[in-house]
């Protein structure tokens, strides 16, 4: 224990120690089958090259590619680079060398050899597989070793193949190569063959990675998947090819072919259900049964917990092996996750991983995720742990295309069955008693009469006999058709109002033209039908509306000159049914840039324009999409360039610096609340080249459920494509209007606060003028009582909303988690992604209201407190010199460090950038939080040298400048920006191939990715497209070169380096360690 080496080989399976190489080995083996299968799968799944570029290089192209309701296809849950680690690490020959069968065999041994880490937490623990060290040493395994992901990945790998094959069709583009490489294998493919091998693979892997519990969950599905993969193919293939959206259902609903409910489901995911039979049977793999018990049956603290321990010598960092320290590793394989198994909640896979959910009672972790997957019985226990209890709710999250669509349940006039006391909705955890005549609410414990027509007898197991046929009794997430009593008015139409800045700056920088062109292309993608209404207005120091409903004539421009007291010039005809004004609108959009080309009005009355547009939309509500280019300087809510003022008296105002991150005054907030009240959601597209006071402006989108898109500095050359794609996703993604959300919890827990982009009028509800698949709300919870030992604690999120097609629905997601009174369980079931997301979001909330240093300290303290608690109460005795991390949270220090160096918490940096960051984070879905602070970096220069396999995206490189070669080209992306860094000595021929330039001097300032006729360029394009798909974001591409400011930007993302704004990773670990030690003392 005392020695660094000890822990590794000994008690704890540290992933990062050299031994972990074994993991690689495992992975490799495990991957093997995948690789084969993928082939089949790949083949079977026709990956139609056509839609290869959902994210076209040039905006138009994009549009062109996907005519109709592509949205689904465009950003579907990306299939994640399958078995990424394997590929990178493994030489191609591996594949060949490995026959499909062997892996299973080989694995078991490892398993056996390894003392099954008892309560070992899922992945990470499983993975460590210290026993198998011998294997391939080449890769230090630093990346592949990633705790959570890798282990699961193994099994999932197998599965991955399945999903991947499924996936491709949907997002074929990226997959093209793979598709092409195995063209022969069409359709049917030797599915059967595929199936079998997998289970084995799974098995083998599972054992190896002791987290047996996990395995099952993952293991089972994969098989299913793989088997399923054959079938799904058709639907998939159909989808991309035809592009035909099932009528009525949202664009996202893929081919419904095989699906029972898909028709109802708004965003019907595709396929999974296609072969339910096949799928379900496999799961009952040996594993599942045994595992669950293990998981929760953890012996008390005495037991060794999965830890990551590290010898840290205070005296010097030199002793630390950089390769030992915990790092994130991306696992490319797809995990299949059953939400409940054996009537136990199944801890979800990491949010950042690629997984397919099978809803077996609990809702998918995409919709609800808890920071800890076991609920502490008492508040004391929770506070001792240093962790927080929060939920991250993303009610309309995009599901994986292979997942079963959400069931839609219609209770008719009477509406869904609800508890008469707490108004909770019927869910699988409601207990029916008394022959089914009554039921006990799992949230408040009240006993209700079962409505007569809902009555059903109970089976011998105490369940209702119809439980399996009724989605609301067997699924964690269902949608109810809302009855009349849920409507205060008729469901609102889908209203899209575009508001464009045409002031001098906007016109001259091309922002106006870009906005018009983007809108013009996007209007074709608006939901079709009579309920879609559009309106448009432009503004400078006055507001210009357009009457689009004029039979024969041109649109009429109506100018509202009074920007202090605004009004809408017409009640009707400003917002018109889309079908009635399509031509006028297009013509107008063509004309607007010309009309204002020589506009000399520099003032921009944003606040007034928003207000005026609001007045026009007041009767219906809807989405207001605002394109703004300068600091609003006129009319209601005009702002001053206070950043400059702040800078000039910096010394005096240092302490007040954060005030600049607060809204300048209450005007916009008041307005925003009014907007929200009338169900108007505002999205701001800032195409600026200067300070625009985002801190003040962001109040509007934040309060109305919208978001900010920030293009700074706006470039008329490279940004329009992103603008277009952002806008397109904005209007086409799954979304709902006039929504109200409430989270209910079991007795003993209550909601303390909601945070995110919404309007809060009463404490219990969240008002969302609009909600879409990308919006996440953080719900912090608190104990108001002690929970019952042995019970489960349920959380139910109910979202009442109107679909774009005008249906009123209630989406109810229920998550029931076990309760525990053991600290070790809390640590074991901690969810890193969720916890870190919460930490980040909280930091974002605090930044405007507290001095930066305080916020930074706070973030570090959270990390320290958790680790300290673990160290003090859970870790077995170890030397003082050792830093011991809970396995589940071992990445916490790195992420916290990255957070400190993020745009939001970095002490330097522009005010606006920070405001944008705060705004972005506040509604950010869990899976995107970690990439935001800890971006993914990959090498591009050696793409050609790597074997072509399933994974499109190469293995990520740690964010440390050690890994940057002077002749390399690297791509770094965080879900928003994408930087391509060119080393000084890049080979000219590579430059030529990728960028079409011959030397570094020719690098353009404004970069547009183009595809040239060579494999390298093609690969790069595929990679970028794949990333875009994964992130549901088009990404701002920028070229960076050493010595340029752009190069500085790039290096500022290398968070493991020591930089002005903070420690290097190693230093930070030491810092934390010291803090813990001092606390211990």
């Amino acid at each position: 224990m005392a020695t660094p080496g000890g822990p590794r080989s000994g008690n704890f399976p540290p992933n990062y120690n050299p031994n972990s190489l074994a993991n690689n080995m495992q992975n490799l083996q495990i991957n093997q089958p995948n690789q084969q299968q993928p082939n089949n799968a790949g083949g079977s799944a026709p990956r139609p090259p056509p839609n290869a570029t959902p994210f076209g290089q040039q905006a138009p192209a994009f549009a062109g590619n996907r005519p109709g309701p592509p949205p689904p296809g465009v950003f579907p849950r990306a299939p994640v680079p399958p078995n990424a680690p394997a590929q990178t690490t493994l030489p191609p020959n591996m594949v060949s060398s490995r026959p499909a069968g062997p892996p299973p065999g080989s694995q078991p041994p490892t398993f056996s050899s390894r003392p099954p880490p008892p309560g070992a937490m899922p992945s990470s623990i499983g993975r460590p597989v210290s026993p198998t060290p011998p294997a391939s040493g080449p890769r230090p395994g630093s990346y592949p070793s990633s705790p959570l992901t890798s282990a699961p990945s193994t099994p999932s790998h197998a599965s991955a193949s399945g999903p991947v094959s499924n996936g491709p069709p949907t997002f074929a583009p990226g997959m093209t190569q793979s598709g092409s490489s195995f063209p022969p294998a069409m359709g049917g493919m030797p599915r059967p063959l595929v199936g079998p091998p997998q289970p084995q693979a799974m098995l083998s892997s599972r054992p190896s990675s002791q987290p047996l519990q996990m395995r099952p969950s993952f293991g089972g599905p994969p098989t299913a998947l793989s088997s399923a993969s054959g079938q799904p193919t058709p639907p998939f293939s159909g989808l991309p090819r035809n592009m035909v959206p099932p009528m009525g259902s949202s664009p996202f609903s893929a081919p419904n072919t095989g699906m029972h409910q898909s028709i109802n489901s708004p965003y019907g995911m595709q396929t999974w259900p296609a072969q339910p039979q096949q799928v379900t049977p496999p799961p009952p793999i040996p594993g599942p049964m045994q595992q669950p018990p293990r998981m929760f049956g953890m012996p008390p603290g005495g037991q060794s917990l999965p830890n990551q321990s590290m010898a840290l010598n205070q005296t010097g960092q030199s002793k630390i092996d950089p390769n030992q320290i915990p790092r994130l590793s991306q696992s490319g394989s797809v995990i299949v996750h059953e939400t409940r198994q054996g009537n136990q909640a199944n801890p979800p896979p990491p949010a950042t991983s690629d997984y397919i959910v099978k809803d077996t009672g609990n809702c998918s972790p995409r919709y609800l995720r808890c920071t800890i997957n076991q609920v502490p019985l008492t508040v004391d226990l929770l506070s001792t742990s240093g962790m927080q209890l929060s939920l991250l709710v993303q009610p309309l999250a995009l599901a994986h295309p292979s997942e079963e669509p959400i069931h839609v349940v219609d209770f008719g006039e009477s509406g869904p069955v609800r508890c008469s006391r707490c108004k909770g909705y019927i869910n699988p955890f409601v207990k029916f008693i008394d022959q089914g005549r009554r039921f006990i609410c799992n949230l408040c414990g009240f006993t209700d009469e079962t409505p007569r027509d809902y009555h059903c007898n109970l089976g011998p197991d105490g369940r209702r006999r119809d439980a399996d046929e009724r989605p609301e009794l067997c699924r964690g997430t269902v949608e109810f058709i809302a009855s009349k009593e849920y409507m205060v008015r008729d469901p609102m139409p889908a209203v899209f109002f575009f508001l464009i800045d045409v002031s001098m700056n906007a016109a001259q920088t091309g922002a106006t033209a870009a906005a018009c062109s983007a809108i013009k292309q996007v209007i074709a993608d608006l939901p079709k039908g009579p309920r879609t209404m559009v309106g448009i207005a432009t503004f400078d120091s006055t507001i210009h509306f357009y009457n689009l409903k004029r039979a024969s004539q041109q649109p009429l421009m109506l100018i509202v000159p009074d920007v202090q007291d605004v009004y809408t010039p017409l009640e009707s005809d400003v917002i018109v049914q889309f079908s009635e004004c399509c031509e006028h609108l297009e013509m107008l959009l063509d004309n607007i840039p010309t009309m204002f080309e020589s506009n000399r009005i520099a003032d921009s009355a944003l606040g007034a324009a928003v207000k005026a547009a609001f007045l026009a939309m007041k009767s219906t509500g809807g989405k207001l999409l605002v394109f703004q280019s300068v600091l609003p300087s006129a009319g209601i809510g005009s702002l001053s360039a206070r950043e400059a003022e702040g800078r000039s008296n910096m010394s005096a105002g240092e302490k007040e610096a954060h005030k600049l991150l607060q809204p300048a005054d209450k005007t916009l907030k008041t307005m925003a609340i009014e907007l929200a009240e009338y169900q108007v959601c505002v999205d701001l597209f800032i195409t600026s080249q200067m300070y625009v006071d985002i801190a003040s402006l962001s109040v509007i989108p934040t309060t109305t459920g919208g978001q900010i898109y920030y293009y700074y500095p706006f470039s008329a050359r490279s940004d329009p494509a992103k603008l277009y794609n952002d806008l397109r996703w904005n209007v086409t993604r799954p979304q709902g209007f006039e929504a109200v959300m409430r989270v209910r919890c079991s007795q003993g827990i209550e909601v303390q606060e909601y945070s995110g982009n919404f309007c809060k009028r009463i404490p219990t509800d969240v008002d969302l003028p609009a909600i879409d698949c990308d919006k996440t709300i953080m719900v912090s919870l608190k104990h108001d009582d002690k929970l019952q030992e042995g019970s489960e604690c349920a959380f139910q999120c109910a979202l009442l909303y109107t679909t774009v097609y005008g249906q009123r629905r209630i989406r109810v997601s229920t998550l029931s988690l076990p309760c525990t009174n053991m600290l070790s369980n809390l640590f074991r079931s901690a969810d890193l992604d969720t916890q870190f997301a919460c930490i980040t979001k909280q930091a974002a909330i605090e930044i405007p209201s507290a001095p930066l240093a305080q916020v930074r300290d706070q973030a570090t303290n959270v990390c320290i407190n958790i680790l300290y608690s673990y160290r003090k109460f859970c870790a077995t005795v170890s030397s003082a010199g050792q830093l011991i991390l809970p396995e589940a949270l071992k990445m916490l220090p790195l992420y916290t460090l990255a957070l400190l160096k993020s745009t939001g918490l970095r002490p330097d940096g522009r005010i606006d950038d920070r405001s944008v960051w705060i705004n972005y984070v506040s509604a950010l879905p869990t899976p995107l939080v970690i990439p935001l602070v800890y971006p993914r970096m990959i090498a591009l220069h050696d793409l050609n040298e790597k074997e072509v396999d399933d994974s499109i995206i190469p293995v990520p490189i740690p964010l440390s400048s050690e890994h940057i070669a002077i002749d390399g080209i690297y791509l770094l992306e965080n879900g928003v920006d994408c930087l391509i860094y060119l080393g000084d000595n890049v080979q000219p021929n590579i430059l030529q191939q990728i960028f079409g330039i011959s030397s570094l001097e020719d690098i353009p300032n404004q970069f547009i990715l183009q595809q040239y006729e060579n494999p390298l360029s093609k690969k790069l394009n595929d990679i970028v497209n794949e990333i875009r798909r994964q992130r549901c974001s088009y990404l701002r591409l920028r070229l960076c070169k050493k010595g340029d400011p752009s190069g500085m930007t790039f290096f500022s993302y290398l968070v493991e380096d020591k930089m002005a704004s903070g420690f290097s990773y190693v230093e930070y670990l030491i810092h934390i360690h010291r803090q813990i030690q001092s606390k211990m003392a």
Partner: protein
Amino acid sequence: MTEFLDLELQDSVRMPWNVLPGTKAHAANCAIPIAAIYTPLKTLPEATPLLPYSPLRCRSCRSVINPFSIVDFSSVNKIWICSFCLQRNHFPPLYQSISEQNFPAELFPQYTTIEYETPAPQSQDKAQPGSSNVFLFVVDTCVIEEELGYLKSALLQVLGMVPENCLIGLITFGTYVHVHELGFGLIPKVHVFKGTKEVTKDQLLDQMGFFTKRPRPTTGVIAGVRDGLSQESVARFLLPASDCEFVLNSILEELQKDPWPVPSDQRAARCTGAALNLAAHLLGACVPGSGARIMAFLGGPSTEGPGAIVSKSLSEPLRSHKDLDKDSAPHYHKAVKFYEALSKQLVHQGHVLDIFACALDQVGVAELKVAVEKTGGLVVLAESFGHSVFKDSLRCIFQAGDHDLGLASNGIFEINCSKDIKIQGIIGPCASLDKKGPLCSETVIGQGNTTAWKLCGLDKNTSLCIIFDVAKKESPDIVSQSANNQFYFQFLTYYQHSNGQMRLRATTLSRRWVAGPGIKDELISGFDQEAAAVVMARQVSFKMETEAEFDPIRWLDKSLIHICTQFGEYQKDNPSSFGLSPRLSIFPQFMFHLRRSQFVQVFNNSPDETAYFRMILNRENVSNSVVMIQPSLISYAFNSGPEAALLDVVSIAADKILLLDSYFTIVVFHGASIAQWRKAGYHELPEHQAFSQLLQAPRSDTDAIIRERFPVPRLVICDQHGSQARFLLVKLNPSATYNSDTQAAPGGDIIFTDDVSFEVFSDHLQRLAVQ
């Protein structure tokens, strides 16, 4: 009578007293004030030359040289003596050659009224569009589609008639005010202003982007191209007719009814006040000081914003005379105050407000009156935009030729008079310029307390009623002074002629005054009954509007009795002995009809109508005004030509056609037999050509009347016993009523009224006069 008409022909002036009571006391005894009804732009006799130079002015009183000036040809430096202040003035070198045989036109005795045209500097100015005429149409869109259609076609027609160099602008309004930007080529563009809000000129300048191309001047008043605005920013809104015809046509054709929904229990939201306010600001910003007219086409009452006359709720009725009397019209005073402010602004800018009120309901003419009258605007009241009263009147304004209105703009009217005469004020379409001086009387009526007035708009018919005071006190030496018993008056009118030139018309009058006992006959000899009636009418109208608790009947009767007592021949207390000089004989009749006229009897009219009638009365000349007071009645029969008939119910006969001209309405009344024959179609038969001619005769006369009149009168063609016959009956002297002793002659008619007949009236008058 004819001598007065001759005088009018020469000097465009009628005075009740052409021989003036020379002292204050005498004047007070006359009951009717010394007054003049002057028509500044009345067409002059053809021979009158237009003098192409500036007039000579007196050094001290600034009056213009005139035929009454005494010229001393003898002295070396020729000298003229001002008739008003007796100042001796030298002639300028140019006049050195004058002699008794050779003197300029302005000294010719027959040219007491003459015009000067100031040439050079103005003509350059004219090249600028700013100084040509500007028409800003302000169009109400809160009307039903049908009305809007009529209005559109009327406007489209007018567009074709507007002279090419005139500037045109367009504002439409309903719930909001739409200022159309005609100079924006790409798509139709309007600036929309809230109807509930009064915008200031500065706000308008800012909000309509007048300073985007050129920075706003930091100091001074912004006024047009000369002061602060760029030509192009003005040209966005006001364009030469030739340039914007196409755009305007398309806008008008596309013009929609105000789109804001109107609940069934409410009136449309109509913001007339805000629209006019904006129009005034727009003109004030773009073309201050040059002739511009705001032509407002109103289709209903203003219900929103400043100048609203009624609330939107239909449960609140429009104000009636009764409400106004009881002061229970909640919006009235506010609205009037608003329009007063508007009128001040317009007068300041020199712009005119014309009102075309076309609705069955009232639109607020009563409130708007002040603004129209002070700016010398035109007003037309009709039932519908489709009615000929509106359509033809509108066309009149733009027509060229003999019957054009002779519209002129930017007039300034000044009076000089002998020092014993003071000016009380003017009742008529003008606004005081507040130029106080020794000539101002302490008693003020109408636009007083000044010797100069602004006439933003004036035309051939515009007639001002100027009321004077005699200041001279009775004194012993007064009679002896008879050597100089002339009063002089000089009326100077500067104006912009419709051709763009600035002109000055000078009228100089001389009237003899008398004083001392025994002047009665002399005064009677100079008494102009018609002028007197008109002065009384204007006075009584004015007093009814301005004096609370004013009893017009009592006031008129008192005045009449006073006159009769003063000037009648009678033995005291013997009514039958009463007699009046022919000079005075029909004056009581005028008064009788005036008492019954719409100016005094407001009972059956809405405040809008009353305001309308009075506005016309206040701007028309004497002969037209007399027709308003006592309509003319012409009778047509088979055996005689058209002859004037007694305005009495006895004139009605079955076999006659009567033509009643009450100015606002022309009634062609077919006797019962005539009507039957006509219905039988006899006039279409060749053998009854005479009948056809008989039918035609009144129509031809009607057409002639209509052609000359603005606003075009309403034509009513009716038959005896028909419902429309009431238009005739109401004007007739009810000598035969349902309870009178005399039976109607066969074929005649009776009137169902309790009004007293003229006989009863004059009986009473005689009785009272002799007491």
